[in-house]
Every structure is written in C-alpha cells, then in structure tokens.
C-alpha cells in the first residue's frame, strides 16, 4: 500500500492540523462563518471578542472554572472508586452480580437532565448536588468498562489458572486485576468528559456558581462573547483532565503496550 509519502511525513502530520486550525479561525474572524450560516454579528461572537473576555475578566472566569472543576473532580474520584467496586463485586459473583451491572447500564441511560433535579432536591443548590450527579454517571461508566476488563480474559488464561488449582483470590489478583488496568484508563478517558458535562448540566438548573450557571446567566444578559469564553474554559478543563489521564496511562500500562 504505497501512498504518496509526503502525507506520512511527521511535518505534515503536525503542520496540517495547525494550518487548518489557523485558516478556520481566520475564516471565522473575517465573517466567513456568519456568511455561511446566516448568523447576525450580534448572535455569534468573533474570536477576538472572546479573547477580549479572557483578557478582561480572567479572575471571574477562573473562580467559576475552579468551582465546576472541583465538582467534576471530586465526583469523578468517588464515582470511579464506587464503580470499580461494583465491577469487582459483579465479577466476584458472576451469576447474580450480572444484575448489578444491568442496573449500572440502566443508570447510564438515564438522561442527566432527569437526574439533576432529584439531586437538587436531595442535596440542595450547592456543590453537593452537582457532585452527586457526577458520581452517579461516572460510577456507571466505570463499572461497565472495568467489568469487561475483569471478565473478558485472554483465551485459555482462566483454564490455565484453574489447571494450577489457583484460588478465586489468586485468579483475581494475578489475572483479572492486571487484565482490567487498560479498561480503567479507557473508562477514565470517557468519564473525565462525562464528569465535566454532568457538573455543567447540573449547574444549568438551580445553582448560583460554576460554569454552567454562568453560561446561562451571561447569555440571558445578552453577553454572547462571555458565554463562549465560559464554554472555552470548560473545554480547556476537559482537555487538561483527558491529557493527565493519557500521560498516566502511558506510564502505568507500559508493560501492556505489546497487547494494545
């Protein structure tokens, strides 16, 4: 499969997306998007206007970003531990534990928008209710992913362990647990975004701080560029969290590289 070789050059791989990105931003800046999508200048801010918001209001942006990021992070950690616990229990009792996993899938399919009002009832309008929403959804995603890692084992490995007369505990610690490490990271990559998203959606309704709250309120005041700046903040946090997970993954699962 000989393809034209310039495409495979490292330079192209790095330069092409950057050039494309710059062209896109320029296109946007000079009204191309407005023209293409029939938007009015008032509705849709230009990149320079959004950057201007960052330059002038960084303190407020930072404050609300920290609040949402804290909710997401605390919820993510608690939810991941709980979800992993559920997956371990489900794999330990394969017959009946399966039902617990089905329950997790059901939770996973519940719209975040339906869960948020209930959690507001339970834990009030502060950070607690947002953390609770995040916990629910990260727990479900973590349980589903790690259960696969704990139960879908390399062919014959379980037979081998059994032929050694390995106990359930030994099978768990030397086969299932190492086998599910990559799945933990797969799950974390999904749940970092999920956690930010759940926190923001929960903030859309009944709260007085955080990115989701701010996006809604500044848009109602007609400050569109501010709204985009808050969206950009949430995107940046999402990307940073994802990157941290990727870096840790590369360090931890080095031994697993041959399998991936």
């Amino acid at each position: 499969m000989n393809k034209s070789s310039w495409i495979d050059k490292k330079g192209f791989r790095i330069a092409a997306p950057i050039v494309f990105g710059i062209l896109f931003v320029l296109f946007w800046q000079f009204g191309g998007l407005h023209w293409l999508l029939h938007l009015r200048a008032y509705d849709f801010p230009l990149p320079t206007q959004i950057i201007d918001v960052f330059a002038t209001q960084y303190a407020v942006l930072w404050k609300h970003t920290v609040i949402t990021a804290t909710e997401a992070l605390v919820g993510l950690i608690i939810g991941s531990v709980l979800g992993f616990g559920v997956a371990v229990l489900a794999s330990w009792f394969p017959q009946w534990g399966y039902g617990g996993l089905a329950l997790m899938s059901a939770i996973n399919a519940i719209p975040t928008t339906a869960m948020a009002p209930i959690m507001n009832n339970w834990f009030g309008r502060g950070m607690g209710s947002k953390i609770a929403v995040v916990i629910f959804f990260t727990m479900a995603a973590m349980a589903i992913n790690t259960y696969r890692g704990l139960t879908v084992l390399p062919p014959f490995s379980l037979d081998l362990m059994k032929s050694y007369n390995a106990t359930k505990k030994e099978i768990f610690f030397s086969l299932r647990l190492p086998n599910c490490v990559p799945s933990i990271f797969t799950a974390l990559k999904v749940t970092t975004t999920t956690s930010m998203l759940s926190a923001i959606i929960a903030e859309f309704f009944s709260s007085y701080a955080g990115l989701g709250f701010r996006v809604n309120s500044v848009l109602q005041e007609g400050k569109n560029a501010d709204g985009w700046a808050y969206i950009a903040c949430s995107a940046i946090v999402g990307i940073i969290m994802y990157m941290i997970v990727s870096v840790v993954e590369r360090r931890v699962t080095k031994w697993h590289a041959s399998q991936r």
Partner: protein
Amino acid sequence: MEKKPVNRKIVIAVWVIGVFLVWEFAAFAIRHILPIDTPDTKLPYFHGVVITFFQNFMDLAASSWVTFINAGRGFLIGTAIGCVIAFLMSWSKAIEKIAFPYLITFQMIPVLGLAPIVYKLVGGGDEAKVAISALISFFPVAVNLLDGFHSVDVQRRELLYSYATKKPITYLKLMIPSALPQLFTGMKIAAPRTITAAILIEMMGSTAGIGVKILYALYYNGAGSLLFWSCILAAAILGMLSSVVVSLVERIVIPWEKAMLKKGEA
C-alpha cells in the same frame, strides 16, 4: 463456576424486585423510622410514582414522543454525518491527518455546554433539539467507526489489494462490514445522550416535550409531587428505550456479532 447456571432473565427480575423493595423501604424509613423534613421531595413511594405515571400515561407518552422523535431525528442526522466523516478520513490519509486531532479534541469537550448557545441561536423549537442531538451524536459515531476501519485485519486488506480489488469494492466487501460493530458501539454511546440533549433544550424553554413537562410539574405541583417524579421516570425510561432501540437494530443488522460473542463467553 460449574454450578447450575441461573437464567439471566431471572437474575434481572430479582434485581428489579430488589431495587423496588429497597426504594419502598427507604421511602418508608424516611417517613416513619427516621423522619426527615419534606420526605416527599426526597423520595416518594415508588408505587405512588408508578400509579401517577399510569394515570397520566397518555399525557406523558405524548410528551415523550415529541422528545423522542426530535432526538431521533438529530441522532440520525448526526450518525449520518459521523459516518461520512469517518469514511472520508479512512478513505483519504490527508483528510485524516488534518481532522483527527480535532476529532479527538472535540471528544474531550463537554459539547452539551453549547446547548444554551444553540438555544440562543435557534430558540427552543424542534430545530434546536435536532441540532444539538445531531451535534452530540456525531463525535462518538465518527470516532468509533474510524476505530473500526482502523482495526480491520491488515492481511485481509492486503489480500484484496493483491487481487487488485478496486477501492470502492474493498469498502463494500470488507471495510464496511467489518467496521459495523464499532459503528453500533458509537451509536449506543450516542443514543441516550441525544435524549439528554433534547430534554436540556426543552428545560431551557420550549413548547412541548418531556422536559417541558418536568418543568411544569416543578412549577405547578412542586418538587414533592408525584407528577414531577413520574415525569422523571418517563425521561429515564426514554433514555433506556433509546439504547434498547439501537441494540435491537444492531441485532437485526449484524446478527453474526451476537452469536460470536456468545461463543466467546461460553
């Protein structure tokens, strides 16, 4: 493990009953054992919610249908665009090199944060729900399908290449059928999210849909009302229904995949 295998349907049934009992007991507990303030807003009796749900069934079903159909339209559009993008990226290496970093980046972004902006641009009508549903389902579909194209066995590709098979034929006979399971993985991730997205737009202000019902129930009947809880129940069912529908379509389109999975598990 060689013990008598319990039928999975029985397992699920026992769990459903278990969850029901736990819920009922918890609702009883916060009223009579450890009384708390306003128990109705925290946890009503589940049977009460179900009864209200069926009393208002037609009403709830009609609203849910509006949400479902708009989310579904957006889902289909988003899936179609996602397929086209994944297809182009797999077809042309140059496009892939340019677009891939963006595809991955967008996956890390909480896209639903854009909902208020979409709402601001097109209002709370059907267009907004369709637009945001399409936007949200596009990324998981594109990423997963591309992943499916990538993981097609190289030896099989090379075999077809050695036969001088034309590229369209290679896609038709090998690439697309092999990547179908991954496509459905992406669709399964996307489906419940589109429901979330549609409800979100509705809750920001719209004229019809289950999100509107939730808001109305909150305003007129209060957070402790059974009607509010049965609206939430309807929304939850809607989310689950969406992923069930995708699974059913999957089973019809690629029946062989399910059979292989069963073999692998045995």
